[in-house]
């Protein structure tokens, strides 16, 4: 146990060491990228476009995995190859299937951003918490809190701004509960996070029924507006892709850049990382470990709840239903691990996961089973990634470990 973080209590053996080498994933990804293009053309000539996209996406994922774990050039090469493979595959089968036009067009990019945004907020939120040394399994629950109280705030307050504030505040309150139990009481962080998820499910369900009588969804709630970029008319490629995105999607982009600067370029970020890597040392030089961890966990709750508000009051058009997040908090957690606890890595993973679910949404009309395949892809990839090919760089060393002042 040489300082490996909570997600990688690994045993050292030659097989896993070889698998862990980022080069392995990189070359596998390159191979898959080439393969994805070949799938659609003779001699294999897969009749369905699904396979080419699936293999291309998997290639892109492992490319990303490789890129954020040290072999940057190899990884980015694999991502590009995977995406080009998808493109060639789509082109090759385009003439044969009429439906493709409806599934793959420039508005898929807009939909990718829409699906990815809750994950972006969640993954960045998880990164802050874990960088300070607190594992946050409760992301799902905090996102759910944001989703419900965001709609409630927008409904009662009459403005989506109130919704954002209330949702963020409620996510922060729930995070405060986790922080108190994890930091002050030194309760097990994973058990605490699990409890947070149950609590959020109960609280949102209870108040949804209490305030809206269950299936009644308020209509005409003030929703988070879209940002129309002047000059990009709908119909053009760029116009369909980014011309009319929700405000929160742009806020997500900004969040990624800001959190990169904060975590890696400022003294505050250095302190956060010190608390996550070696809290005793941080304490010795005068950093208040408890305060930093409290701040990061609460910030994490606020950020992921903002993703939840977007889900209900932006993407969902002001509607809420029981357990609305449906696992998005956990995909966000996976995106954070995929992205190696780094903002841009997490962002890349969130985009790819978002693309996967956007494709799933569109395929539903044509093939339910193919749609399921893209829905399950994030979970399978995460399982493969943390299982077989965990990267060489490791999570914060003190991640998940309670710290006791002396």
């Amino acid at each position: 146990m040489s300082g490996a973080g909570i997600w990688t209590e690994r045993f050292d053996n030659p097989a896993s060491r070889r698998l862990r080498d980022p080069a392995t994933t990189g070359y596998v990804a390159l191979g898959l990228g080439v393969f994805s293009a070949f799938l659609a053309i003779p001699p294999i000539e897969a009749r369905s476009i699904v396979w080419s996209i699936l293999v291309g996406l998997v290639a892109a994922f492992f490319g990303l995995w490789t890129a954020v774990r040290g072999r940057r050039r190899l990884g980015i090469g694999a991502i590009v190859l995977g995406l080009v493979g998808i493109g060639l595959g789509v082109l090759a089968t385009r003439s044969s299937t009429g439906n493709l036009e409806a599934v793959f067009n420039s508005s898929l990019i807009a939909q990718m951003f829409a699906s990815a945004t809750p994950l972006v907020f969640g993954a960045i939120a998880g990164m802050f918490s874990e960088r300070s040394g607190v594992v946050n399994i409760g992301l799902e629950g905090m996102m759910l809190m944001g989703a419900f109280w965001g709609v409630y705030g927008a409904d009662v307050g009459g403005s989506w701004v109130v919704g954002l504030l209330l949702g963020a505040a409620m996510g922060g309150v729930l995070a405060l509960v986790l922080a108190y139990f994890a930091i002050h009481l030194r309760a097990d962080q994973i058990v605490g996070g699990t409890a947070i998820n149950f609590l959020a499910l109960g609280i949102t369900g209870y108040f949804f029924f209490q305030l809206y009588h269950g299936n009644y969804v308020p209509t005409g709630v003030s929703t988070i507006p879209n940002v129309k970029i002047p000059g990009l008319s709908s119909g053009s490629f760029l116009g369909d892709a980014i011309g009319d995105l929700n405000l929160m999607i742009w806020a997500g982009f900004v969040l990624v850049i800001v959190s990169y600067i904060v975590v890696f370029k400022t003294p505050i970020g250095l302190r956060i990382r010190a608390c996550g890597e070696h809290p005793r040392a941080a304490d010795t030089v005068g950093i208040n470990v408890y305060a930093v961890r409290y701040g990061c966990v609460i910030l994490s709750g606020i950020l992921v709840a903002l993703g939840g508000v977007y889900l209900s009051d932006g993407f969902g058009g002001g509607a809420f239903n029981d357990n609305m997040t449906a696992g998005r908090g956990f995909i966000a957690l996976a995106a954070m691990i995929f992205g190696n606890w780094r903002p841009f890595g997490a962002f890349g993973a969130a985009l790819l996961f978002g693309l996967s679910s956007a494709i799933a949404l569109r395929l539903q009309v044509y093939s339910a089973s193919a749609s399921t395949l893209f829905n399950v892809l994030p979970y399978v990839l995460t399982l493969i990634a943390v299982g077989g090919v965990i990267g060489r760089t490791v999570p914060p060393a003190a991640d998940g470990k309670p710290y006791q002042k002396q």
Partner: protein
Amino acid sequence: MSGSDEERPTPPLAQPDEEAASAAGRLAVKHRAGGLIVPVLTALIAFLIGGLVVLATGHNPLLAYRDIFNGAGLNWIFHPTTDIANTAAYNLSQTLLQTTTLILCGLAVAFAFRCGMFNIGGQGQYFIGLYVANWLGWSFSGMAPLPHILIAVVGATLAGAAWAGIAGVMKATVGAHEVISTIMLNWIAIWVGEWLFGDGGPLQNAANKTVPISNDVADSAKLPVFWGQQELQGLHIGFFVAIAALVVFSLILNRTTLGYEVRAVGFNPDAAAYGGISVRKNLVRAMAISGAFAGLAGALDMLGYLYHFGQSDIPVSSVGFLGIAVALLGRNTAVGVGLASLLFGALLFGTTHGLNSNVIAPDLAGNLTYIIQGLVVLFVGADVLILSVWGWRKRIRPKAKPAGTAEAAA
């Protein structure tokens, strides 16, 4: 909850240091501190806070809890009768039906805990058991009942074991944390179900291709019902299987070499390895046995009273997650899991049935179950707090908090 008798004969190993103890291992150490007080106080505080939520939203918590108590059929003890036409008796039979499932789901979490692992994947393993039992249940129609039931139950149990075994093998070989892998396996199991029962899926019913529901299991695979009627969701013999599972769980852990090794690894993997116990082998074994319990739960539910399963049933089911609360409240012991299952079984059925909506609507009460479940898990994870509440009340240990923290950091 006199489950503490099972806690005592732990291997005489060194206390785990902060580095070596896993999440569940640290928890196991803390669980030794509180005896009987912590679970009882935990449940009381959880119900108290739940009651405050009810009160704050303008309902009477005492009346609500009384209705839930009666709705769960627990008032049966005042007028015991085996007549199923009696409302209390019927309600009790339904509560015991839920208890059956929860015992097994609780054991699934508890067994892994005793080996130092946190199995969040009970829900997924339960689903896999459910799917396999459904498939085997209608596949061999026309077979004699006993072999058919045995095939379906054993098949589902093994499937659950295999599903959990994936996480165990991944932990043992490359050290992937079981929490992240079992969460992913849960969601994969959910989507597998969506696919199996969905349009054109392999387990979708043959009769109506527009409805995403499975076939009914054959009559020969249905478990005999001993209390109530089969058509009215009577209590099936799986109840005794669950009780037997409690005994088996206790025997395995306390009376076999396997159990000794599993507990040794859970207590301190490094010391266990030093003592010649294969840590990897035990991680895989413990996880597989955990999954077997959850898979068995799925089999008994499918063959006992569900008989079919559909896409819309998937997001509603949460017994696997309730198993976490059951195991933690029951302190990962057989007796504790049994009692906690009865509590949560009563809560689960009592909140969905026969409630007067003037007092509290079933939808509110159902979510109250989640809140209480969350609070129980939250407080059990932090019995330093519970003990300090106790110490502060009784003034037995004025400095309860430092005493507890010494345990935690030891």
